């Protein structure tokens, strides 16, 4: 299944490295990344692919939130269908 990871916060060195390093350790495949700086705020959107396993995705979602807290960032992981259903007819 596919999911979207968003990382928002103050820009600093090593955000992409830290997040993608964590995902690599968990064998999560990154399909696409887009990233911008909006008024000093770092904004990254990643499309990632998971194995179809409930516990894995819930687990990683929790750990990403923790990672975000440690780095002073807000990190969300949400399944892709959420955005598709909210914004596409």
């Amino acid at each position, binding site marked *: 299944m596919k*999911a*979207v990871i*968003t990382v*928002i916060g103050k820009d600093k060195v090593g955000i992409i490295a830290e997040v993608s390093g964590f995902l690599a350790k968990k064998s999560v495949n990154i399909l*696409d990344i*887009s990233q*911008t700086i909006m008024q000093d705020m770092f*904004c990254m*959107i990643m*499309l990632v692919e998971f194995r179809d396993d*409930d516990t894995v*995705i*819930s687990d990683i*979602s*929790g750990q990403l939130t923790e990672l975000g807290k440690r780095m002073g960032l*807000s990190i*969300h*992981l*949400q*399944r*892709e*269908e*959420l*955005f*598709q*259903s*909210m*914004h596409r007819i």
Partner: protein
Amino acid sequence: MINPFEIMQTINMIDKENLDIRTITMGISLKSCADPDLKAMCGKIYDKITSYAKDLVKTGEDIEAQFGIPIINKRISVTPVSNLIEALPSPTVADCVEIAKTLDRAAKTTGVNFIGGYSALVHKGYTNAERVFIESIPEALASTDIVCSSVNVASTKAGINMDAVKQMGEIIKKSAELTADSSGFACAKLVVFANAVEDNPFMAGAFHGAGEGECVINVGVSGPGVVKCALEKVAGEDLGVVAETIKKTAFKITRMGQLVAMEASKRLNVPFGIVDLSLAPTPAVGDSVAYILEEMGLQQCGAHGTTAALALLNDAVKKGGVMASSYVGGLSGAFIPVSEDAGMISAAKSGALSLEKLEAMTCVCSVGLDMIVIPGDTPASTISAIIADEAAIGVVNTKTTAVRIIPAPGARVGDTVEFGGLLGTGPVMKVSRLDSGEFISRGGRIPAPIHSLKN
């Protein structure tokens, strides 16, 4: 890939604008549990609820984690318990209370936060068992924690059962007195309906109606904060633009509800029933229906124009939501529970919002007089008269109306009563001191209105 702007919009809605799924409610039919032996019946009820709903809370939490959408409540609604009482050879109040306690225990085992369906439908008349059942409501609510009760006293097809209206005024008073130490908290779990709906997922009025299937998943969305923020962006535009903006926002909110409902139904292997498109406020700042009305240009909720603004809101929410979901049901509209809405609380405290204005607002909102605290010395007949007025609005306008009113023992106008959590803080509101006793004591049935004769 999905547009980054849309992704950020969704995240903003959840993070900053309090977008959430208010409730996933599992409706469970208890028809199969009826038994002439009380102990056997309680056993069947407990077993059925705990086996059908055993994964409900866990599934809700899993969906929450994977989609990143807060799901505030997981709840259960059951077949109106008065129907089960009919199976007992000579039911007593104690028997009914025993069943309420069983529901409470079963719900706690599953981990849900409310169970609804300690209910009776008496809009045309009582059976002997229903009479006993309604007598048991105060004790049942006082001796349980998470059981919710509702009684339907009127319908457009049947008219208004004024005997039941009279009795419910007394039942509400008694419920408040039995829980005087918590300011009449039992009354917050008791709703008196006209035209009650069978698939409503919201408490305290949820029950699993007679026409429902074995088990069903209903979802209630929320999101007054999101609508308010969307309206901030169209400040000064005409009301056509306002309605259009609300529609678009309601569409997105409902799509999320539909997604969660489908996912929950798939995981639990239970059919999907309906999405209820209600804007349900919480006491959190920024999650208020009153603030939406004020955003439209009213100085404070309760000002002249409030009813028109609410009518626009209620209608636009439905129009936007209806295309977003395959099955829409429940109450679907805007709720105006006074103690659960930061804007309503302050309007009631400052005197901007009166009971009379709220009554007018209930003509165009999705339910009725909801979570209103009134002085503890209000006579039962006055409460009955308030119920009769609301029922008349519902019956004549072919809509659901309800009364959830708390005559807090010892409280006077100007006091505030703290319920905590989602139930919030209720300022004690002024009630007319004129006597309605003689009207209420007449009893009987107010006939159904002419436009109910549609066949």
